[in-house]
């Protein structure tokens, strides 16, 4: 049912945007944003279920402390940034969409830095 609700909300938001874009383009962006947030809100239960499943898998995987959370966080950031960048593109703000993507990449690379350091240390220890 959630999927049908999401489809209906998105189609309705798309129709509203199409109607508003000619007369009130600023409102069209707001409607698109509201539609996207509503769709994500409806999906939150399923997203939580997926996150829990991945958390359980991470526990079974016996990854080092913090690694599983880091991976989940990286995936979440990628999802949110994609959503934000798409919205900016819809609003005709390609430059802003690019900045969002750049910011996301920088944040993710900063998150990956401890992993990279740990990997270098491990390889260094093995080859020493």
């Amino acid at each position, binding site marked *: 049912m959630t999927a049908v609700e999401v489809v209906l909300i998105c189609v309705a938001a798309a129709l509203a945007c199409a109607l508003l874009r000619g007369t009130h383009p600023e409102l069209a962006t707001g409607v698109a944003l509201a539609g996207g947030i509503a769709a994500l809100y409806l999906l939150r239960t399923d997203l939580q279920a997926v996150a829990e499943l991945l958390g359980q*898998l991470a526990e079974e995987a*016996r990854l080092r402390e913090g690694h*599983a959370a880091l991976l989940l966080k990286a995936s979440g950031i*990628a999802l949110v940034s994609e959503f934000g960048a798409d919205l900016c593109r819809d609003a005709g703000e390609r430059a802003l969409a690019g900045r969002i993507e750049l910011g996301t*990449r920088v944040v993710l690379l900063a998150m990956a830095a401890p992993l990279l350091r740990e*990997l270098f240390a*491990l*390889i260094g220890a*093995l*080859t020493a």
Partner: protein
Amino acid sequence: MRTAARCALLCLALLLLCADPVRAEQDAQRLVEALDVGPLEHAAEEAELDLNVPALLRGFVTGEIPLDPDSLLQKARALFLAAWQRTLAFFPGVMLPALLAALTARLAGGRGASVAQYVCCLAGALAEAALLRELIESIGGALRQTAGIAEAVFPLLAGLLAASGAGTTASMLASTAAFACRSAVHLFGTVGPRYCAINAAVAIAGSLNPRLSLNKLFGLLADLGKWAAGIAMTFLVGLLSVQGLLGAGYDSASVRAARYAVDNLLPVIGGEVADTLDAIISSARLVKNAAGVTGMALVVAVCVRPLLRTTAALICLRLAAAAMEPLGEDALAQMTERFAEVIRLLLIFASACTVQLLLLLGVFLVVGKSAVR
């Protein structure tokens, strides 16, 4: 005249008694009890082997060790299953980053997703590198322990070889075997794992950066490792074989000369004394072979677990790579496959070292045959 004949008959009877096989076995058992197996016991204790070395040696001398192929196979199966279960714990750790990367790519699919995939690739590399480190430590430890066992058993074998009439071979082989053993353990137990780690680093670098094509370099390094292992093994085994053959010629000549002298210079009882000489040499050879087989059994007991563990890890990583391919995670699948290749190389090094040590012990068993009729 009659008294002299009786004395001669008594001597003959005694010598025949000495040549009796049962008596020879008793002599061998006495020789076993007189042997100093302390260093070998100490090496077995250090390797945490729950084995009674003197009892094992006595068992091999008397032939009372039940070597039932079925029970051996069952034990090997149980060991492999234990190793497999232990390695399988790494499987979710290797698969989870691939799963998350695939999920992110499907849900997001932009540039942010590609960086998230990169983070997942890093986490996967860390999990696989941790597995490699565990294997390297386990193999390195086992090879050092086997070197300890081999170095404890070589002097024993050299002494017994000398007692069985192959003194020249013993003196030639003792130093060469010690050199070959140390070289093999250093080469395959210290240099080899480092080489594998370098290969793993190349595999990670190639997978993390799609623009960096390191396929040929990785292949070259893997091939070089295999060739080096083959060449080192051939050289060390060849060296020992040549030494053994050279020594065997001297020993055969000296023992035959001694036997000829006893047989011909001692009137009446010369033939019997020569036979007794053969019986004594046979007893020493029996004990030498038992000591060699005991050393082999200890080496196998120490090495079997790490080798099975490495084999299980190799299969596990191959399975993971196969499972990653349908997810569309080519970089992670390629990295996992290359890690499997690195582990295969590690397995080759560890197997080469184990086989090398077994062959060294085998050379001691083979030489000295020509000393006895």
